[in-house]
């Protein structure tokens, strides 16, 4: 399945784009997505262990399963306020 991952802040700058599409096996978890993203976009490898992911605008965990059509986002440590 094809999954689009939105990138923000330092992740966007490191990747040089604001989103990336990955082809993942059905049933992939966030942990698997994180590993694939590091392999596909090496500049992100350094920060990926320390970022969170969201699925459908809600925080996900490493065990969360990504569905086809989900909006996934890479959330580096936040600094609003």
């Amino acid at each position, binding site marked *: 399945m094809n999954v689009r991952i*939105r990138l*923000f*802040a*330092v992740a966007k*700058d490191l990747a040089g784009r604001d989103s990336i599409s990955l082809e993942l096996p059905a049933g992939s978890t966030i942990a698997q997505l994180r590993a694939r993203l590091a392999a596909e976009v090496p500049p992100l490898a*350094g*920060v990926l*262990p*320390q970022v969170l992911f*969201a699925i459908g*605008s*809600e*925080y996900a965990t490493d065990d969360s399963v990504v569905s086809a059509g989900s909006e996934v*986002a890479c*959330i*580096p*440590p*936040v*600094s*609003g*306020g």
Partner: protein
Amino acid sequence: MHKGYLGCDVIEIVNEPIDTAAVLAQVATDEAGAVLLFLGTTRAGTRGRRTASLDYECYGEMARNQLGELEAVARKRWPLLGCAIVHRVGHLKIGEVSVAVAVSTAHRHAAFEAGQWLIDTLKEVVPIWKKENWSDGESQWVHPGLTTSVRPDDNARHDG
């Protein structure tokens, strides 16, 4: 200004300067004995280094969702009458308001507790990021705790 209890929640992410008088008006009600307004403002210096301006970016849909959840939790924990959270994004000069949190309550202690919890939690969970544009020309995203960026020393947690 006679006005009944509205109890409406206001959540906004805006590109323009925050109208703090409007935020206060949004939480005003005749049943309130206390109104608390917290403003986060962009300050000129952070640990000795001078900031020229800041840029805020957000993941809009999720940020709004998260702010809505914060308000819902705060309403369960404290007897809030009005509650408003407005966050600004885009380019901010020094001395401008980046976030406004306002609550109104019958008694003041709940207003202080809820206001502090809202801004503390907002800063921990809401997907908004700021980039410091230092006066020496360098720019840098602020990611508290992120240790593998180019300049790890600059990413110690700092709050406003």
